[in-house]
């Protein structure tokens, strides 16, 4: 065969397979939306799930997912940004730094179920936190930290060197340079990275099954006292999130409409994750414009 013919065949195979991926994605999204969107209404989004009869919603699960995300970010942001700043600004190339890099790499490759089991052993049993939002948030923080450290390090490394040198020339301390010169410049990418990580946290289920638990107590949404056991804000109550709920409904759903609930909940989850991804880009751009003089 002529080289040109082979080239043509190979090119068309590559193009077809690449387009196949795009079609696959469109098919996946289309399927989720087509199956799920009909079941989404205000009642579905706000009411509690029904175990045996139909007509249940995902209200508490949705609330739990959002609340858990907030708790996780409260833990992750200071630790993750701090670790990233260390790696970008303080770490000197050498054995210790490459060891830390290895630790971050290993931590980020641990399967999420292993992190969930670790949470079960240490947080739930050893520390006596029980199946609770706080255990879930800490486990998710472990799951999320390596990614945060990496994005923060990249964000700080991307700051032009001149900015730092200008600070040094002014005789500022290193920490002052980091907080008042580098941080504002790096902030847009930090925010984008954090929101993208939030999307990941939102869809995570395996690490939560053994830490935040697979059930929700009946919540009283009029009780906002964080210490009462039925209050939605109580961080020491068990909480089933949306992703865990989808898993549970699919694998052991016994209600007559479990298929519909799974479809509707999946659509809600995917829409929220897509919203996170799109808003990450948008907010990043807006903050960048605010923080810098560029248009």
């Amino acid at each position, binding site marked *: 065969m002529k080289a040109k013919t*082979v*080239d043509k065949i190979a090119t068309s195979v590559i193009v077809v*397979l690449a387009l196949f991926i795009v079609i696959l994605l469109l098919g996946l999204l289309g399927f989720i939306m087509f199956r799920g969107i009909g079941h989404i209404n205000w009642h579905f989004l706000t009411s509690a799930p029904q175990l045996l009869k139909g007509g249940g919603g995902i209200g508490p699960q949705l609330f739990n997912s959002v609340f858990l995300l907030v708790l996780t970010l409260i833990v992750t942001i200071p630790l993750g940004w701090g670790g990233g700043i260390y790696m970008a600004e303080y770490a000197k190339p050498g054995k210790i730094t490459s060891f*830390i890099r290895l630790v971050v790499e290993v931590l980020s490759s641990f399967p999420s179920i292993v992190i969930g089991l670790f949470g079960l052993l240490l947080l739930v049993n050893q520390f006596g936190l029980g199946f609770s939002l706080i255990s879930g948030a800490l486990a998710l923080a472990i799951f999320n930290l390596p990614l945060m450290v990496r994005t923060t390090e990249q964000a700080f490394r991307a700051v032009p060197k001149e900015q730092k040198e200008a600070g040094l020339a002014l005789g500022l301390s290193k920490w002052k340079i980091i907080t008042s010169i580098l941080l504002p410049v790096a902030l847009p990418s930090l925010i984008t990275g954090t929101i993208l990580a939030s999307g990941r946290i939102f869809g995570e289920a*395996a690490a939560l099954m053994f830490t935040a638990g697979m059930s929700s107590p009946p919540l009283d949404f009029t009780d906002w006292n964080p210490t009462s056991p039925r209050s939605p804000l109580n961080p020491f109550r068990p909480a089933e999130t949306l992703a865990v709920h989808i898993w549970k409904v699919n694998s052991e759903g016994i209600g007559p409409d479990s298929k519909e609930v799974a479809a509707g909940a999946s659509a809600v989850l995917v829409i929220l*994750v897509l919203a996170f991804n799109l808003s990450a880009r948008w907010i990043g751009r807006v903050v960048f414009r605010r923080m810098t003089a560029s248009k």
Partner: protein
Amino acid sequence: MNNKLKPRRPLKEKHYWEEWTGRIYTSICVVFLIVVMFSIVYFVASKGLSTFFQNGVSISEFLGGKTWNPTGEPAFYGALPFITGSFITTLLAALIASPLGLCAALFMTEIVPGKGKKILQPAIELLSGIPSVVYGFIGLSVIVPLLRSIFGGTGVGIAAGCLVLAVMILPTVTSIMADALSALPKGLRESSYALGATRWQTIYRVIIPTTLPALLTGVVLGMARAFGEALAVQMVIGNAPHVPTSLLESASTLTSVITLSMGNTTMGSVHNNALWSMALVLLVMTFVFVILVRLLERRNRV
């Protein structure tokens, strides 16, 4: 030097404190990471090893035994069905996803650079954003019925599991491969074209051989993801505790067994400890994958 020139004490003291708060604060964050990593290894290993040292289950039975019957009399703790299940699904998923990912990466960098990236990059990012339980749901409501209508039987099994996993790891494989291809020095490509080679000859003889270690890194990272994935696989694989003999037969993976049984066993029982040993196998495999990636990266640098 600075303090000799400027004897202003208060400023120097302020600098001193600022310097140390920053240093100490960020160091604490990093130390926390290290402590977490080691405590995960320590706790999982101590639990997982107690199956062998306290409960007296032999390592060879655990790794090589084909019977898993922890509640029977006598009880059997052979995890081989799950270990093979994990390896088969992971390898098959990588076999499906790698060529697809390579084609997508080549499409983005070699065939229609610019425009191709504009189409595929968002698609890949969206694919990676879809949560794993949703992939499981799709697998359960599309792939399983499809396999059932084509091949008969129940539809759940290794085939369904590895198809779902292949889609899940596709973004990882594609994005790493695309990075590797676009990092290739331009001169190599151009000199090949200058010799009169066609695009495919350039790709096949020049681009792929030079970037091979980096391309393989993508495959290994995809496999690492597939090996540890729990819920999506658990939903479609059927969870039968025997060594699979066909792709359409119901099977289990390490992760799916842990997911299903961990909640139903009491802490400290032999059954429970055996599940921890499986978690330990997952942990060890993570290290194997990390080492593989490191080796490939070293090859890539030379």
